[in-house]
């Protein structure tokens, strides 16, 4: 046994290089599918525009080019990508464990509430302490909210699809209650919380852009979750529980505990996304703080085939489409909701391409 360990250490570098090579080449192959899918979706969008009296080619020229105009617009894309990557990567973990957490939206709101609470009720801390504390509060609250659904699942076999949907509504209503009631900033006309103290704000990357370090945190966490799922013992257990809970139990894994861990990780990521929205973007809590990031995150994870590393790309893609559609609306008066159609088609195309790839593999 000692020998095996010794050998492992000696070969760690070439092995890592090989693994990197393999990961990259796999990434190249798997990148081809989304790119093709995006092309299909954009063509569909163009056709839809053309059929309805708009200039169809705007979809490409305005939407894609427009969203990469300058550093600021790229910064805006990354800003939108932050919650999508966080939520998407987190959901990869839950979905890999076969837990259908549809409740990221609610977990985001609860995270935002906790972040607001910590960011408004404490004063006089250094930014080095307060800002991380706010993120931690968001993550913990999101995990706890998701944990409710997890507990109901392991304890009462209550379908998490149903409970997480219900918890979404409850979180939204709770937010509405708090900002119109106990957390309301009485001096403001709008129902909103007080402003977070400066030290609680998520630090910016460049001082005159809204982009904050949340994007870096999101990428780091997505990579970490990838390593966790693929390389760690606990991640292995989560996957086994997701693939075959009976075998997991037989092998001595604690299925309930792993389910709880997986759903809480996804909830923590969504809660963190909520904390970043409050502490990094709005600095206050509002009733409609999320434009549906929680639901879009589901699509991000599914598009990434439940791989957190790929969720970075799919989150970026969805953010780009969202930004592009805003540009498109301003320049060409195209209803911004077109982006939802394009996102939907992207997913369907990915699914179809994956299938056809399988068919070709079968023929060979």
């Amino acid at each position, binding site marked *: 046994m000692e020998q095996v360990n010794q050998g492992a250490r000696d070969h760690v570098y070439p092995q890592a290089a090989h693994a990197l090579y393999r990961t990259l080449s796999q990434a190249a192959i798997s990148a081809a599918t989304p790119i093709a899918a995006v092309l299909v979706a954009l063509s569909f969008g163009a056709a*839809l525009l053309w059929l*309805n*009296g708009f200039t169809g080619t705007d979809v490409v020229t305005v939407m894609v080019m427009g969203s990469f105009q300058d550093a600021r617009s790229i910064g805006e894309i990354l800003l939108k990508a932050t919650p999508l990557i966080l939520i998407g990567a987190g959901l990869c973990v839950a979905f890999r464990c076969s837990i*259908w957490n*549809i409740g990221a939206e609610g977990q985001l709101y609860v995270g935002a509430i906790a972040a607001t609470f910590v960011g408004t009720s404490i004063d006089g801390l250094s930014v080095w302490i307060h800002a991380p504390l706010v993120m931690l509060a968001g993550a913990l609250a999101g995990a706890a909210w998701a944990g409710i659904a997890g507990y*109901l699942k392991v304890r*009462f*076999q*209550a*379908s998490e*699809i*149903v*409970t997480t*949907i*219900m*918890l979404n*509504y*409850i979180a939204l*209503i*709770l937010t*509405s*209650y708090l900002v*119109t*009631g106990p957390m309301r900033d009485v001096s403001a006309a709008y129902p909103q919380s007080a402003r977070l103290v400066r030290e609680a704000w998520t630090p910016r990357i460049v001082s005159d852009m809204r982009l904050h370090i949340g994007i870096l945190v999101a990428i780091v966490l997505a990579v970490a979750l990838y390593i966790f799922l693929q390389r760690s013992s606990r991640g292995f257990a989560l996957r086994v529980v997701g693939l075959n809970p009976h075998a997991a139990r037989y092998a001595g894994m604690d299925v309930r505990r792993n389910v709880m861990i997986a759903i809480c990780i996804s909830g923590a990521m969504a809660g963190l996304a909520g904390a970043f929205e409050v502490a990094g973007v709005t600095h206050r809590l509002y009733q409609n703080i999320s434009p549906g990031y929680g*639901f879009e995150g*589901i*699509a991000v994870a*599914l598009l990434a085939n439940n791989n957190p590393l790929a969720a970075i790309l799919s989150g970026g893609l969805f953010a780009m489409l969202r930004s592009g559609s805003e540009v498109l609306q301003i320049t060409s008066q195209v*209803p911004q*909701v*077109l*982006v*939802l*159609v*394009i*996102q*939907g*088609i992207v*997913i*369907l195309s990915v*699914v*179809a391409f*994956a*299938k056809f790839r399988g068919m070709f593999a079968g023929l060979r």
Partner: protein
Amino acid sequence: MDDMMFFTFLAALMGAAWRLATPLIFASIGAVFSERAGVLNIGLEGTMLVGAFCGFAAAFATGSIPLGLLAGVGGGMLFGLVFAFFTITIKADQIVVGAALNLLGMGLTAFLFRTYYVSTGKGIEIAQPVHIPWLSDLPFLGEAFFRQNLIVYSTILTAILATLVLYRTAFGLTLRAVGEHPKAVDVAGRNVATYRYAAVMVGTGLAGLGGAFLTLGHSNQFVEGITSGRGFIALAVVVFARWSPIGAFFVSLLFGLFYALQLMLQAQASVVVPYQVLQALPYIMTIITLVFVRGKGAAPSKLGQPYEMR
């Protein structure tokens, strides 16, 4: 006098509950069909929106409510066809495709509505309550149950018909078997894919009808996101109702009742709890009831799984 007030309140509550339950009844009974056949369609929200939009557009163009309803059902089924193609023919993951269809349904309806209708500001003539001689004039009962439009009345028919089809016809028998042991159905000489397509069509057609009720039978306008999460609630209703059409009917009514109750209690000046507590009531009750209606014994055992024919 107080008793009188109470009964008026109760009568109005019942009437409202039934109307609010109507879209849920259609959508959840539809979902019972597709889930019994092993197909889990989380794209119901998008499908209902498509039904609501198509129903509105058709009635807007023709001025005919029956045509509108037909278009709602047709629009839902068209969407269902896409879902079925991807999940049954291509055998893609049902949750993935359902999520995509929610995006598509929301996006397409909003896009088309903004492009063609939003500036018209015009609505349509909706289905009128049908006055049933004698019954509608009954005190209390008349107000509660007999002053609805035909679409609302037809929910009863739908529930009964669905039960008969599911439990008393060869089609229903096969459908129930498909969700449980598709291979046995295959061996018995019925095409599993055909039945799943049929089940999805029934499911999405009814979801489309539920959506169309919103625009044709209740308010006279399409509004972006008019379904407001009813497609998701319908999924919850099915689990709650343990995959039975009659169960879905009554659980939907229960939801309608909670919903109506919170709206009516808000309007009562004497009720002092924050209205958000009342709003959260239906959702909290769902969770609590789910804890009591324990276990997934009744779930079709192949729910969500594509069937690989040899």
